């Protein structure tokens, strides 16, 4: 390619790179700087009130019970929510892939519809569905003899309700990825398994799952990254309550940063979340590579 072509390449990427550099890379670096200062509402008013505190914010967070609570809640949401979501997605994909199913385009669209909806709007619906007195869920449960449950008002039930909501909202996304993974498994593998007399379960266990391995890893990592960013659901459904049982890490970051204007602390919270996510992701990749190598 000639010289003008090289220049053209740069001119084509320049606008996007500029936007990403100014509005993403620079703020990320600035957040690192911010996290070692005591930036608060006084510094917001006058920058001369800003002081360097080293790792002070991080150490204060590690000594703060609410931070641990938020971390615990977020991990609860991720550890239960991600496998549950993936299981439902895979089950839905298997149903859609089955030759016995009918009206598949309709079902596919129906399962996917919650994915495109707005979290805030459907969270409002769920808050009402799970209303202690007037909700459809308690009404249905009362029909089979259960006492009403205070879903979003009981610290033991609030997070499970949010997990159910997240599964309902998101399973369609991974379902589409699994479906295309299933369609790319060669039919003769199943043929061979059937000739060997393998049952449907054994076919799933020894053909489907291994063939889906790389897809499962990808879906697992993407879903986990998404679930660590839990925010809108507790903001709308529970406002972090009851008894702080649904305060997530990002909810804590938002409250620290934009309710109390402790932007230094909020940046430290964001970085801790980032380090945690990066650590778990590379752990998963390492685990997958080791299993793949065996």
């Amino acid at each position, binding site marked *: 390619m000639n010289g003008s072509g090289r220049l053209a390449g740069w001119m084509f990427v320049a606008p996007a790179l500029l936007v990403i550099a100014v509005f993403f890379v620079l703020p990320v670096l600035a957040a690192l700087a911010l996290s070692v200062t005591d930036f608060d509402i006084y510094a917001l008013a006058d920058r001369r009130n800003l002081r360097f505190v080293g790792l002070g914010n991080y150490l204060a967070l590690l000594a703060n019970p609410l931070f641990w609570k938020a971390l615990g809640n977020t991990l609860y949401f991720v550890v239960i929510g991600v496998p549950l979501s993936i299981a439902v997605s895979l089950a*839905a994909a298997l149903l859609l892939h089955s030759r016995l199913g009918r009206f598949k385009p309709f079902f596919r669209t129906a399962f996917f519809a919650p994915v495109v909806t707005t979290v*805030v709007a459907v969270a409002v619906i769920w808050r009402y569905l799970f209303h202690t007195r007037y909700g459809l869920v308690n009404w249905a449960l009362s029909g089979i003899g259960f006492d009403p449950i205070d879903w979003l008002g009981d610290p033991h039930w609030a997070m499970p309700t949010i997990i159910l909501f997240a599964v309902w909202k998101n399973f369609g996304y991974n379902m589409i990825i699994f479906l295309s993974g299933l369609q790319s498994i060669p039919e003769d593998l199943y043929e061979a398994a059937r000739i060997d007399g393998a049952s449907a379960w054994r076919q799933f266990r020894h053909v489907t799952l291994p063939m889906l391995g790389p897809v499962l890893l990808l879906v697992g990592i993407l879903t986990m990254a998404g679930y660590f960013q839990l925010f809108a659901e507790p903001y709308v459904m529970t406002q972090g309550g009851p008894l702080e049982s649904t305060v997530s890490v990002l909810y804590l970051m938002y409250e620290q940063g934009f309710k109390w204007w402790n932007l230094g602390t909020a940046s430290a919270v964001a970085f801790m979340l980032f380090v945690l996510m990066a650590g778990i992701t590379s752990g998963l990749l390492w685990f997958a590579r080791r299993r793949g190598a065996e």
Partner: protein
Amino acid sequence: MNHRLAAAIVNGLLIGLAILSLAPLLWMLSVSLMQPGEASAFPPPLWPKAPTLANYRELFERAGMGRYLLNSFVIASATTLLSLLFNVMAGYAFAKLQFAGREKIFAALLGALVIPGQVAMMPLFLMLKQIGLVNTYAGAIVPGMAGIFGIFLIRQYARTLPDELLEAARIDGAGEFRIFWQIVLPALKPILVTLAIFSFLGSWNDFMWPLIVLTDGHLHTLPVALASLSREHVQDNEMMMAGSVVTVLPVLFVFLSLQRYYLQGLLLGSVKG
């Protein structure tokens, strides 16, 4: 017989799952048409006794829903148009134009995908406050003007364009920008539609950043307005459902009319480069 039983189970499960998926959305629609107060009853009514648009009227006349709808449309449309232009140019260049450092920059961009966007929010807020963009449409639009995922998506697709097509145009003496407008853009049309849907839905549904940067009520987007309404009107279930319908209906409509493009893009975006 065994086969028919299996078919019944599969179809039964499909129907059950479809009911679970759609019931909350259908109930939302039904409750939004009820008289104020009608839904606060036990057992919860499934259908409105006398369907009414009173909740919608209340929302648009008193709660300023028209304004929020407009805000959402302006912000989502502007973000979509700008990000489409920038991402497509960059994605095409990463796929088809040679320039120094191309592979390294692209690898760095992919690496940056692991950083959650919220890390940037605190300094971004301070920065936009400094230049006077907090509480403006621009403040909500500007950070979304380019995205790594969008660039990646376009690059994946643009790599399949035949080089001969571009070379032939170059030999005919066409400049790079003319090639881009007259040959590349038309050839990329399907993926442009896909990326436009992704951007529009993403921007429309976005919550945290608009919540932070649009503190003035007049500028609230639908999700932000709905969240604050739902905190004020905890008891007005019918009105809140109407608000949810107004928020969700446009994106559901976009998805239903263009779902082929959307699902195709979802797969392209999740395949490893």
